[in-house]
């Protein structure tokens, strides 16, 4: 009855504070490595938090022709690098994406770094010396356009600025386009660079921890800011099989919901709805889920709301579902977060290994879930959910499954 193609993940590319490339990233992630370090991207004087998940060792020239690097903002550089890695990981030649049946879908929170540089320049010195090249690169749409331009793709091109859930929005729509629009390949994910505005903003909301991220812990103090990019290659199952691609996981669908409640405070009912919608779209029962990669930012409000929502959706079965948060290691990579997390779900499925939630010391009765504390766990994962919840009620939940013919 359902003639729509099945959608699988065949390539993963990551640039993160704990590793660049799928293998180094996964090795570090499953070892519980923290990517949090002293912030060098800007002056942190006067603020409680001096730490974040910066990517210190990123060399754009490794992935991008040198003459093009200066025309690209950092978020674009990260995204192109992660895309290159994903394409290579999928064992595709880049030129096999250079046509109108390749869609490029990106998610972000803050957009392009040149914008921040420009604004700071304007604030300090007025309008005189504003760099024309930066102006051209400032608007957020450059992010998705730059990736499409670099790989010469000609299909749909979307930029979803749905903040902390953006990666899921991009990957989810990629799934839709393959099934319904005759698209062959999707390059989807998210990217965000370290932004001073975000650093100040989260602290002014008292949402940031001074030193480490402790999701679900009783004494958790808040999130940490991170940066990076996660990009996936999605393709039709028949195409993947035909070319003998390695399949990480199948995407079964995704659920979105909207709290319609508050610009920043989460609503457990809205969060639960996203997960329910996801299960319904994927035609699964709540008892089918083996693992949840949570949004788990480490703020008192998010983790409590999410734990409650998980309990309400999964009821008794919640006791059997490990619910980790890799933000404990990477910090919150904003628009890249749910994309990197989706990648970690694919790898958890492939390897039967769930990365830990590190920094977990004291259980919180309000977050009564198994958060895979501190050490990675071996478990066969058939179905994983990837949660991403953003300010303003942008809730998303992606469903990934172990591939079986």
């Amino acid at each position, binding site marked *: 009855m359902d003639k729509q193609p099945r959608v699988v993940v065949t390539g993963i590319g990551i640039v993160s504070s704990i590793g660049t490339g799928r293998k180094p990233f996964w090795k570090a992630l499953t070892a519980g490595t923290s990517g949090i370090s002293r912030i060098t991207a800007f002056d942190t004087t006067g603020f409680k938090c001096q730490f974040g998940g910066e990517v210190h060792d990123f060399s754009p020239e490794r992935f991008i022709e040198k003459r093009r690097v200066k025309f690209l903002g950092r978020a674009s550089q990260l995204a192109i690098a992660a895309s290159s890695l994903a394409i290579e990981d999928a064992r595709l030649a880049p030129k096999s994406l250079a046509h109108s049946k390749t869609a490029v879908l990106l998610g972000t929170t803050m957009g392009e770094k040149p914008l921040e540089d420009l604004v700071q320049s304007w604030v300090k010195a007025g309008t005189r010396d504003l760099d024309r090249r930066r102006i051209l690169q400032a608007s957020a749409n450059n992010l998705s356009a730059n990736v499409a331009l670099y790989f010469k793709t000609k299909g749909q091109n979307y930029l979803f600025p749905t903040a902390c859930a953006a990666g899921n929005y991009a990957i989810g729509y990629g799934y839709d386009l393959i099934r319904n629009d005759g698209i062959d390949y999707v390059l989807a994910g998210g990217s965000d660079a370290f932004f001073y505005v975000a650093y100040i903003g989260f602290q002014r*909301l*008292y949402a940031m921890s001074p030193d480490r991220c402790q999701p679900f812990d009783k004494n958790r103090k808040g999130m940490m800011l991170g940066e990076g990019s996660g990009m996936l290659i999605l393709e039709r199952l028949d195409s993947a099989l035909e070319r003998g691609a390695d399949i990480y996981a199948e995407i079964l669908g995704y659920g979105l919901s909207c709290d319609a409640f*508050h*610009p*920043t*405070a989460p609503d457990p009912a809205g969060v639960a709805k996203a997960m329910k919608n996801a299960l319904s779209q994927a035609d699964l029962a709540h008892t089918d889920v083996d693992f949840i990669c949570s949004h788990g930012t480490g703020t008192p409000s998010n983790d409590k709301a999410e734990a409650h929502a998980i309990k309400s959706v999964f009821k008794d079965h919640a006791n059997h579902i490990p619910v980790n948060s890799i933000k404990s290691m990477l910090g919150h990579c904003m628009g890249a977060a749910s994309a990197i997390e989706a990648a970690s779900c694919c790898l958890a499925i492939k390897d039967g290994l769930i990365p830990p939630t590190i920094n977990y010391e004291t259980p919180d009765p309000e977050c009564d879930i198994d958060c895979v504390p501190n050490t990675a766990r071996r478990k066969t994962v058939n179905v994983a959910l990837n949660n991403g919840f953003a300010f303003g009620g942008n809730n998303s939940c992606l469903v990934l499954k172990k591939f079986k013919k």
Partner: protein
Amino acid sequence: MAPKNFEVIKQEVKKAVAAIIEIPESKLTDDIKFVEDLGIDSMMALEIVASIEKKYKIVIPEEDIPKMRCLRDIYNSLEKKL
């Protein structure tokens, strides 16, 4: 701190808070509770605190914010800091 009459400061604070909550100053009595009586949300509470901090160049510790339940609490806190 310049010896501004504290009554003047109280009037400034009342005006600023009334503007944030968007109610007439006459309705904003010293003891009326922000959350329970006026129904403000967490963001508005943060905004009120931020405007006081900015205006008087002080820092209100995070733990004290939930204690700012009405104008009188703000006055008391300010009086100690100024």
